């Protein structure tokens, strides 16, 4: 049975206080992988997931006699481990080193553990390793994570190898404190190199791992993964963790609107836009065609709004816009009512028209002739829109009284 703080979680990774600026070791652990709990076993708190587990969906299964077994993403569960009330244990998956440390909070029912806990493991954005977002012009940022030997034995052979763009250095604290920098762009006094090592970190000792991220002129990217590998040895077993996080690279010149247009057909969104930049944007519409158009927005991280319905305009051979003729309303009934009045019940099929009508316009005569819209004056009444934006599709209009 794996014991908490003695094996794969013997070397703890902690945030600094103030966050990322050195100073002292915070009580908050850095989460290289963050658990997103989908279904819980109520008394079980996930305290730490070993970075070796990788992203994906993991499970903790309750067995008989208050035991739990952990399965890292993509593999079978390890051995069942008894979890005492108010106890803390390390659950190992099938692969040694892929582990999760959990605490059983006895104030939560049920008294006996049962059920299945599922959780997604995801990497954080702009965390202690990912640092802040930058622009394509590049910048140098500094960050740090405390390494804390939370076991009862020495940890030896700590070797740190950062990914591209990173340099690292160790700083030994004095009375628990390291240099505290003003902000993430202020260089500490540490001497950075391509790798760094600590021969021995005694039980209960801490050391500050500083890193320097230098990104020169770069390509815009909405998710860049930063990684720092940490190898260490305890009780003759070697563990390799990867501390990671995402950051973004922005290019302000990409932030713009993009107008797409198609002649007698929908626009080809895989082709360049016909006009780009700030609004307003314009495009020439040639006569004698139906033109379809759509507007998209792109941000500084090269993320565009998704495809939407195109709007259209019909331009006749003279270059004039052709306005669609509305469909006719249907006269449902016309009845005489008391006092010589006539009630006309109307219905309008609003779904037929591309652009819906918004006014009832009634022409009426009482001299035996048909109404003539070219000469007669109509009676207008607005169609009241519903809460869903649809026009009033039925109406009863009263005329008269007539003799």
């Amino acid at each position, binding site marked *: 049975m794996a014991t908490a703080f003695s094996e794969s979680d013997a070397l703890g990774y902690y945030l600094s206080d103030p966050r990322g600026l050195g100073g002292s070791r915070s009580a908050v652990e850095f989460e290289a992988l963050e658990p997103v709990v989908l279904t819980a076993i109520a008394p*079980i708190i996930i305290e730490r997931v070993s970075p070796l587990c990788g992203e994906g969906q993991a499970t903790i299964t309750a067995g008989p006699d208050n035991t739990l077994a952990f399965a890292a993403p993509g593999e079978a569960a390890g051995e069942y481990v008894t979890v005492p009330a108010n106890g803390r244990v390390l659950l190992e998956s099938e692969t040694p080193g892929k582990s999760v440390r959990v605490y059983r909070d006895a104030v939560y029912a049920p008294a006996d553990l049962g059920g299945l806990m599922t959780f997604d493991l995801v990497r954080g954005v702009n965390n202690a390793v990912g640092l802040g977002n930058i622009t394509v012009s590049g910048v140098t940022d500094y960050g740090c994570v405390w390494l804390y030997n939370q076991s009862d034995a020495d940890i030896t052979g700590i070797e740190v190898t950062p990914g591209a763009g990173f340099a690292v250095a160790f700083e030994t604290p004095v009375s628990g404190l390291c240099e505290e920098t003003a902000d993430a762009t202020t260089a500490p006094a540490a001497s950075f190199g391509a790798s760094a090592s600590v021969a021995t970190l005694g039980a209960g000792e801490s050391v500050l791992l500083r890193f320097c991220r230098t990104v020169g002129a770069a390509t815009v990217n909405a998710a860049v993964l930063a990684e720092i590998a940490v190898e260490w040895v305890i009780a003759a077993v070697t563990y390799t963790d990867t501390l990671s996080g995402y950051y973004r690279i922005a290019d302000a010149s990409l932030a713009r609107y993009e*107008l797409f247009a198609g002649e007698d057909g929908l626009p080809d969104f895989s082709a360049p836009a016909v006009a780009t930049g700030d609004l307003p944007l*314009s495009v020439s519409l*040639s006569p004698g065609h139906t033109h379809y158009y759509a507007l998209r927005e792109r941000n500084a991280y090269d993320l565009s709004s998704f495809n939407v319905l195109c709007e259209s305009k019909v331009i006749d051979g003279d270059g004039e816009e052709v306005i669609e003729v509305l469909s006719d309303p249907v006269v449902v009934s016309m009845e005489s009512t008391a006092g010589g009045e006539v009630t006309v019940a109307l219905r309008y099929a609003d779904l037929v028209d591309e652009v819906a009508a918004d006014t009832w316009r009634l022409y009426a005569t009482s001299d035996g002739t048909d109404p003539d819209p070219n000469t007669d004056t109509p009676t207008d009444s607005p169609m009241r829109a519903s809460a869903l934006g649809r026009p009033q599709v039925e109406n009863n209009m009263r005329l008269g009284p007539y003799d």
Partner: protein
Amino acid sequence: MPLIPTAEKLGRYSVRYTWSGDAPFRVWVNGALRLVQTDDTELIVQFPGEAMPHAIEVLDVNDTDPAESEAHNPCLRLQWRGQVDASAYLVQRWNGSEWETRTPISENRAGYYRYLTVAEVDGTEAQWRVVAQDSQGYEGQVIRHNQTVVCNPLPPAFAAAYDSGTGMLTVEAA
């Protein structure tokens, strides 16, 4: 690369989106996964209201990258560990002048709680917090978390006008 569906109006309240590629397809509508592993090459969607566009993302079997709808989700996921002394948790969003309670969530001894926020606008900074409240209505301390939201921009609202004198269509902000 995501497929680019074409859109065809069916009356004023429905749209047919069609695409081609190698099945099976996965289709997201407004950031939510609508069709999983489908061989269909069309989707008919109804508008909840007039002139409300849908944002459609379609990936075919050749797409190995995660969907942008998920990789750059406009919603924030809040997760917190429950505490037995609480009777409820107030999920609140800073509206610029005060903390506005969106929803109270009862403490039901579940252990963990999750809340998916409304979609935030690309490039903005949103502030959310969760406040524990006991049965007497007293509120506990809060941990506030700020996160800059970067996601696919919303389809922009715009107005278009055609000038028959110049033959130009001009699109401007609505």
